[in-house]
């Protein structure tokens, strides 16, 4: 599937602005973003439930949406797994799964075989005669999965499918989705606001904010090399801290001063000293400084014990408004109000002035 310059306006509001992306056959793409970022609108436009204002959508080489031309959803060969499952309450499990086959006028025998097959793929064999209402949340989600894979769609869309499940079920359904994807090799676009889900499942993640794609890259790249401040802050509560650059890039690193501490930072090719540079540091890039080690002083603001480790919030004396946080394993040496000296062990220099980035 390819999306080119997709824009959607609702009245005066731009829900999507110039979104372009390409999903390779068999790829698992997660679209990740805070609520209201436009990810659901994107999914509904791919499915054909919303018209496009500008740009176009292409599925399997055929343009399905462009302004003034829309292939209706029922002729797009897509499958959708909805957040609320959307199982038809007046049909049995087997009827739910077989609906698209019936629509496609598949003969009854063949239909039965494929329903059985789909049921066994989601480990629900023998449950075909049950009504959706008698199933647990996880089972319903699996029926929804079977319903969409039985039609062998070109593209499967997941609309926050785990948001309604409890934590334990979520983990096991994640495994199930991953196994489903591996087994069937279907192309998947997976909408979520949960980073852990996206990281665990996706080949690539598209981070969205305010209707734009902020970064489209593999999970590791998103985490370690955020393309801009938004991605840096959004993923795992990254810290964004001003730095003074001292050298240009060489072999993917450069030298800089961060809160007075000299440090070697990872950076992209061609970086040269500039004003206003910022760095993205993760919690694991911070630790208490040893004696005589370069670092920076400040005050412990808060110690939140999380079992085995504590998350510690720290205000550096040089810039008290910055919140530095890190994870301290037991035993806990700090209490709120203590003075301490910390140091950074690394960081990623955020590239200059880019609003969107494709570093795949």
């Amino acid at each position, binding site marked *: 599937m390819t999306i080119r310059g997709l824009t959607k306006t609702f009245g005066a509001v731009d829900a999507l602005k110039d979104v372009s992306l390409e999903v390779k056959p068999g790829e698992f793409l997660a679209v990740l973003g805070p609520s209201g970022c436009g990810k659901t609108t994107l999914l509904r436009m791919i499915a054909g439930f919303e018209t496009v204002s500008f740009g176009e959508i292409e599925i399997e080489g055929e343009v399905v949406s462009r302004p003034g031309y829309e292939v209706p959803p029922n002729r797009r060969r897509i*499958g959708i797994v909805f957040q609320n499952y*959307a*199982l038809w309450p*007046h049909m049995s499990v087997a009827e739910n799964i077989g609906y698209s086959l019936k*629509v496609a006028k598949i003969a009854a025998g063949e239909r039965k075989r494929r329903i059985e097959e789909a049921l066994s793929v989601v480990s629900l064999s023998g449950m075909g005669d049950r009504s959706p209402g008698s199933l647990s949340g996880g089972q319903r989600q699996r029926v*929804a999965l079977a319903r969409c894979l039985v039609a062998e769609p070109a593209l499967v869309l997941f609309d926050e499918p785990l948001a309604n499940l409890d934590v334990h079920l979520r983990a096991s359904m994640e495994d199930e989705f991953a196994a489903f994807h591996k087994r069937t090799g279907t192309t998947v676009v997976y909408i979520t606001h949960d980073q852990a889900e996206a990281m665990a499942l996706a080949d690539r993640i598209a981070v969205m904010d305010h209707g734009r794609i902020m970064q489209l890259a593999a999970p590791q790249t998103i985490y370690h090399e955020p393309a801009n401040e938004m991605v840096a802050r959004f993923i795992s509560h990254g810290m964004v801290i001003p730095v003074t650059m001292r050298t240009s890039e060489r072999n993917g690193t450069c030298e800089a001063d961060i809160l007075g501490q000299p440090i070697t930072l990872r950076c992209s090719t061609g970086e040269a000293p500039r004003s206003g540079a910022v760095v993205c540091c993760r919690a694991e890039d911070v630790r208490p400084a040893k004696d005589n080690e370069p670092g920076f002083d400040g005050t412990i603001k808060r110690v939140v014990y999380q079992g085995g480790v504590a998350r510690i919030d720290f205000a550096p004396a040089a810039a008290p408004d910055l919140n530095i946080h890190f994870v301290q394993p037991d035993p806990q040496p700090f209490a709120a109000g203590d003075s301490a000296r910390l140091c950074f062990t690394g960081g990623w220099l955020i590239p200059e002035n880019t609003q969107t980035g494709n570093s795949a």
Partner: protein
Amino acid sequence: MGVSAPEGQGQRMALTAMVVAVIVVFSLMPMLRLLQEIVLPGGHFSLAAVGKGLGDPVVWRATMNSLVVGLGGTALALVLGVLVAFIVGLTDIRMTQALVLCFVTPLMIAPQVTALAWLQLFGPSSALLHLFGIAPPLGTPNPLYSAGGIMALLGIQYSPLVFLVVRAGMRRLPRELVEAAKASGAGPFRVAGTIILPLMTPVIVGAAALTFVSCVGNFGIPAFLGIPANYLVLPTLIFQRLAGGGPAVLSDVAFLSVIIGVIAMAGIFLQDFYSRRRDFRITTASLPPEPYALGRWRLPLELSMIALIAVILVLPICGLLMTSLVRGYGVMLTTDTITLDNYRFILFEHAASRRAFLNSFSLSIAVAIFAVFVAVPVGYVIAWGKARWIKWLSVSVELPYALPGVVLAIASLLLFLKPLPVLGVQLYNTVWIILFAYLARFLVLSVRPTVNAYAQIDRSLEEAAEVAGARLFTRLRTIVFPLVAPAAIAGGILVFMTALSELTVSALLWSSGAETLGVVIFSFEQGGDSKYASALSAVVVAITFLMMLGVNLFARKLPSGVLPWRD
């Protein structure tokens, strides 16, 4: 705390006592009195009235007729109502607001006015047919004077009822269920047939039961179309017997009214049973489905909707207006013969007609005001009460309206035939007995939207006032009433409009000097004065329509779902 708790308790008990008193007086008492007349006449157990009724072939025929026209009318109303609800709810047809307003209007017009209007349209004296020179010759019977005519008009009268119920149900249909079917490759007709229709089945069955009860209990249409053809249904049989025999036959007609009540209850229970068996309740909150784009079919469909409105609303109203403007039976309507004499006659000359205006307006205003002020506490107890018996309470409020009006009229007659004990006041043969019956019958029309409004209000608004120290009555006055007042007042307006041209109850309860508009229209038509009946009906329709439009101006301030004619 120690001091205020008993006081708060006292106010709560006073409120509950008041609500219970209203329900006992207006709902339970009439029904119990009716039952007593059937099995315990004069205080002794006897089934004589039942035996006499069961042995009467006329009663059997009327019962059969009631079932036949009830089922026929329901079937027609279902087809029409569901079709329009699907078109309005699922397609991108334009002008839905105006369409809904026009389609729902027949429901707001009294049945006898609908009947009269259609009679004017089709009869040998039809001014409209004369205009085109295709009127049947004078002396031939009107084709609507038949079972088929009654069914057709019942269907048209109550198809808006089906429409409103199904439309409301479709708004609760989560769009994901439709979208999942689209993604499975289903086209529009298959989605409608295999997903939406089955999901709407309980709603449609509910609408069918409601419509069936309304059809069986309808008096106006079979009175205007059936009596001339001697095709009697139970309500018209009761009317004829009571008109001929007076209070002496009250015990016999009480049994007839119980038959109607039983048929109506059977419909309600059937629906309840069916909806329990197939519970398709959809719990998730979601948006309704996106409308289907009709493309080049949009204009033809819109035109056929306009044609439908023309047939079921505009043409009969035209027939009514034209008859009201001619000098006499069978006279052609030309620029020479057009006259406003009929209007002058009914507005200024005819004494009973002038009295009827006064009576109907006073009754309707009194009932509407009462309904608004009772609906607030009753709604409070029903919507926010916690006790188990509350459910029964809401059922008993619905009872006098759910059961056909004839049943309530007979019950009121039985209650007030003798002067009130202790007080010695005579209500029978006065306008007060009509007032009592109206209060009992129409109360629920304002309670329903008020309960609906309570459900949309966050209870914590009242709890905040409670924490601030306000006692129950203070809270009701300063917090609750302002919040639910719009819905209660809209309900009161519905009560007013319904009571203004009401016929079923007043046809059995009226007396000389206590005529209502409905009764006067009916008397004119029975006496062969269609032109006066039409003129009076035209005035009533005009008032109704103006009120609908007037209330529409304030619709934005009302909670959703209060005004039936607003989409």
